[in-house]
């Protein structure tokens, strides 16, 4: 019996040492690698070990037991990051019971089986920021996820990533002014105008500020808002028109908030203030033919070169699909941004590293560097050419689409 014990321990020792060698290693060889953070590499190799990038560069010897993915002449880029992604959620997104719902976590409602995930992966997006609906003034906490795994817990990278605030006319949609108190129907509620929206925003931050010193804060809503006041959770403000953006800036100055603008369709009119305050911007749904701003009674012609102007002035610009399932995908959005006047490198950064930095997950995704997650997109040609196809998507080292 003793002999067996010895044999067993010996075997254990051996496996411990060789184990790293045995760990699943894949190597991706490609004609051209755009690392985004550094210089593009021609005929380089990326070594991937259990989901992370172990080494990247030219002339790296590939261990024999590695599975080699030869991408031939095609171009390799880091997986795209969509900072205002379509929501893979079943059922209604908006909690109509009250206009201020900061405690609402969209991560509870994630649906890994949602059909949207498969479509998003095929466009090369490997990291998504999902925000709650747009019918409430403060609609809740968004989450950063990866489109993989079959239960929500396996998808989440960073929960409570940001608080979503909507300041454009969306929250007033569907509300009716109560003719007689008490309001009979659920929808007889307060914000009928933009003034009311701003008032409610100020009021909730004011209450949070009052309660900031009493520990522990009894009302969970105000607890979240006080964390926001202490800049532990960033705020994503949904604003389209210039006057709304300026109003948001006022509220931010009053309470010293760190803002990030979503959609920001008329951002070019306030480009300088955004640059001064170093406020990053996530540009919303992209149209091939940008006509009027949305359908909320604000039909005004919009400048097509919004992204180019903001980038030129030094604002951190990220391109997102804006939460609309069938708009143009994120790579085509970058191509059309360049067509309308944005700089090429700025556009490529706008779909990879910039949104990663805005969401605070830049240490894991956004570019091809050692130690980062192995999220790789293989394209059939120059990324900003309309006839280029996404050939393969690698997520955490595993091929999820080809």
């Amino acid at each position: 019996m003793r002999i067996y014990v010895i044999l067993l321990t010996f075997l254990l020792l051996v496996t411990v040492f060789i184990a790293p060698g045995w760990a699943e290693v894949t190597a991706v060889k490609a004609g051209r690698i755009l690392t985004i953070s550094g210089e593009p590499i021609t005929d380089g190799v990326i070594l991937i070990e259990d989901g992370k990038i172990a080494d990247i560069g030219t002339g790296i010897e590939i261990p024999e037991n590695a599975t080699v993915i030869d991408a031939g002449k095609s171009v390799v880029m880091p997986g795209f990051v969509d900072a205002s992604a379509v929501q893979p959620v079943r059922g209604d997104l908006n909690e109509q019971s009250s206009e201020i719902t900061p405690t609402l976590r969209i991560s509870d409602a994630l649906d890994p089986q949602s059909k949207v995930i498969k479509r998003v992966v095929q466009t090369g997006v490997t990291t998504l920021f999902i925000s709650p609906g747009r019918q409430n003034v403060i609609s809740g906490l968004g989450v950063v996820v990866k489109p993989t795994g079959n239960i929500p817990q396996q998808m989440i990278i960073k929960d409570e990533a940001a608080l979503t605030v909507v300041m454009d006319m969306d929250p007033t949609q569907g509300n009716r002014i109560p003719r007689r108190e008490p309001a009979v129907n659920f929808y007889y509620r307060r914000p009928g105008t933009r003034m009311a929206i701003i008032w409610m925003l100020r009021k909730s931050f004011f209450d949070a500020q009052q309660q900031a010193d009493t520990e522990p804060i009894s009302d969970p809503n105000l607890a979240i808002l006080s964390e926001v006041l202490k800049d532990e959770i960033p705020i994503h403000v949904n604003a389209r028109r210039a006057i709304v953006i300026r109003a948001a800036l006022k509220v931010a100055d009053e309470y010293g908030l760190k803002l990030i603008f979503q959609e920001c369709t008329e951002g070019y009119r306030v480009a300088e203030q955004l640059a001064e305050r170093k406020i990053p911007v996530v540009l919303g749904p992209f149209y091939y033919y940008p006509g009027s701003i949305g359908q909320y009674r604000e039909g005004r012609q919009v400048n097509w070169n919004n992204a180019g102007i903001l980038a030129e002035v030094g604002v951190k610009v990220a391109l997102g699909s804006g939460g609309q399932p069938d708009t143009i995908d994120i790579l085509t959005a970058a191509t059309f941004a360049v067509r309308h006047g944005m700089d090429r490198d700025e556009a490529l950064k706008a779909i990879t590293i910039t949104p990663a930095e805005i969401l605070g997950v830049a240490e894991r995704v956004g570019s091809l560097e050692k130690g980062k997650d192995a999220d790789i997109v293989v394209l059939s040609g120059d990324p900003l050419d309309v006839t280029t196809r996404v050939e393969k998507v690698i997520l955490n080292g595993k091929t999820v689409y080809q």
Partner: protein
Amino acid sequence: MIKKRFLSFLIVLSISLCLTSFGNEPQVIAIRAGKIWTVTDGVITDGIIIVDNGKIRAVGQEVDVPEGVNILDMSDKNIIPGIIDGHCHIGLSLDIFSEMDETVAAIAADMLILDAFNPHSKDVKKALSSGVTTVMLAPGYRNPVGGQPAVVKLDTSKANDWVLKRSAGVEFSLMNQALMFDREPTSRAGLIELVKEQLNEAKVYQEGFNPRLEVLNRVVDANLPAYIWAHTVDEIASAMAIIDQYNLNAVLVAAGQGDEIADMIAKRDLPVIYPPLLLSSKDKDLKRVGKMAGSGVKLAFASLAPRTDLNDLRTSAILAVKYGLDKEAALKGLTINAAEILGVADRLGSISEGKDADLVILNGDPLQPASSIEMVIINGNIVYQRLEE
């Protein structure tokens, strides 16, 4: 053709005479049957069951029959224990064509579904012929916290010993159908937020006058079972997250797509009350229950009557066998598994000594819809007998 019918009429007449003759004071009865499916210890061919005072005193091949008791000869019949329906809404005052249940209050934890049950309703009488002897009456899935289900026997003629459990637990629903457009919650995230909020409040609840939190407190602390409606994979995942967070003694209801994460359900050994298979028609959906049972999940069946007929609870189990479930698991699902899940396994679920004498007598293999139910006995009394019209 006429002669055969007359003969069976004679036999049935004799049985009912000697059984009903005993009338109300319970006596000792002995039944000899071709096949007795005891469920817990195999099938006894040509065995005898001794019923005394509504309980099964003995069952086996050679059992000493006390004198003065004539043996009822059912030698060409099969006997199975009374079928148990995991979830149904029979006899509730709700009109089947309007809303299934109370939808004004999202949290109705203190509502006892038994108060809405009408024991003399026509549906209950009609259901006796289906071989189902015990049911769990449950509220629907339109409320995040629907109320407290009850376990009752269908023979409601006696005073009130037909109520086995006035409150068998609390019913939760994480399905999208619980979202209403005109009352809280209206979004999926809001639904889960609301349920967690209620459970948090229940955790910190001391004595007080809030009946709702009183019940929820027993769920969180004193292991009162929680029946959770969840159909799709993400609904089951949210249910499991809540079960882990508050370590509830939970049962999954419906779990229609549970086969895709059956290993996680099995790991937490969560029992599942599966919806009737007749509601789905695609092969892919019909094979799900077989796969789920294959990876070790304990299953019971529900008819969700009146959405499907109580007679078809047995058909639903047989259809599951046709699409991959093994026969043993199907029969158990209708009897002992359901009894264990509803917490009445001490009295029901199998033909073994000491258990209630709920028996169903069929003229053929119980796992064939073509074999018909000849007689149903609850607590030793005949509640249904098939007479040739």
